[in-house]
């Protein structure tokens, strides 16, 4: 048990920061991101022996993060209003263009569906291929392509000041949710 605890503790100490960033992008909120990461780590702790023996700890954690983010994990949590300035960005010096861009991006991401957010994070934050993304999310490559296209289209509409970063607009008309 001591070795299990040490191994698990070492994994969390070294990888929790990276995993927390991914969870934050998936959840769209710091508190929800912490809950999401905690959920993933709880599942890892329950089967640490098996995962540590096969060396698949981090892939498993990431899979749990994405699966929980997409498949209804947030339904159990109270919906948070993400409008306005986030807590971590609120401060006397946060009036620069960089901070404003963060707020815009964050709000725009919050308006995407969980699956669209997961596709964007996998494709552009973790640099996964379309095939890997499809395997991660358990869907087809065509679904990944269409979700990516629609997500970028919505971001262009929701955050027009960042539209240059999302590439040229395509002929697909993005459906914008109110």
């Amino acid at each position, binding site marked *: 048990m001591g070795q299990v*605890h040490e191994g*698990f*503790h070492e994994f*969390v*100490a070294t990888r*929790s*920061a*990276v995993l*927390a*960033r991914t969870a*934050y*992008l998936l959840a769209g909120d*710091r508190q929800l*991101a*912490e809950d999401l*990461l*905690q959920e993933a*780590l*709880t*599942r*890892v*702790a*329950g089967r640490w022996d098996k995962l540590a023996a096969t060396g698949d700890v981090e892939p498993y954690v990431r899979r749990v993060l994405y699966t929980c983010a997409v498949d209804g994990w947030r339904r159990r949590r109270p919906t948070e209003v993400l409008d306005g300035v986030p807590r*971590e960005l609120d401060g006397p010096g946060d009036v620069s263009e*960089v901070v404003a*861009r*963060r707020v815009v*991006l*964050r709000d725009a*991401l919050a308006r995407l569906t969980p699956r669209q957010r997961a596709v*964007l*994070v996998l*494709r*552009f*934050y973790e*640099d996964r291929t379309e095939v890997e993304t499809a395997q991660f999310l358990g869907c087809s490559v065509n679904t990944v392509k269409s979700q990516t296209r629609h997500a970028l289209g919505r971001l262009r509409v929701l955050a027009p000041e*960042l539209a*240059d*970063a*999302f*590439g040229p607009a395509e002929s697909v008309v993005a459906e914008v949710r109110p």
Partner: protein
Amino acid sequence: MSANVRNLFDDLVVHVPAHLSAGDLVERAQADARRRRLRRRLVVAAAAAVAGLLFALMVPVRRPRVRCRARPVARRDRRWTGIPRGLNIQWPVRELPDRPGPLAGLLETTREYSDENPSPDSMARWHVFSATGRRWHLPHGPDHATSTRPVAGRDASGIPGRVPTARTSCTIS
């Protein structure tokens, strides 16, 4: 485009994990995992108990039922009044004690033919019964019955006395 989006994401999450404590995460994760493991075991145990209870309730208790009506061979003979009108279910059926006493008849029980019981004769059992319908088992079967016959008579119809035979066919189901 990919690099631009990546830069935006990096910029968005640069401050995120600053306050996370690995110790707290580990402690909470292990505590939650223990709690879930215990809850899962309790659920499994409860489900097994419920399933066992349902199974016990659904499976009927199979008791051998003896359905027969003892008939005196000489039915028209009004002298025989010590014959029970029927034999009730009795369990257990003990062996005939080794002491003298009045008996009403000799009984052979067999099981009905079925796929599970292709030779009903092998299931034949011999009993004697009293006037009140109580039965005793004859462990040695027909041999034992033979030694009883002097009391009841071979078919009990011709022996004067109080002990006629009720040679009857009964089924145990």
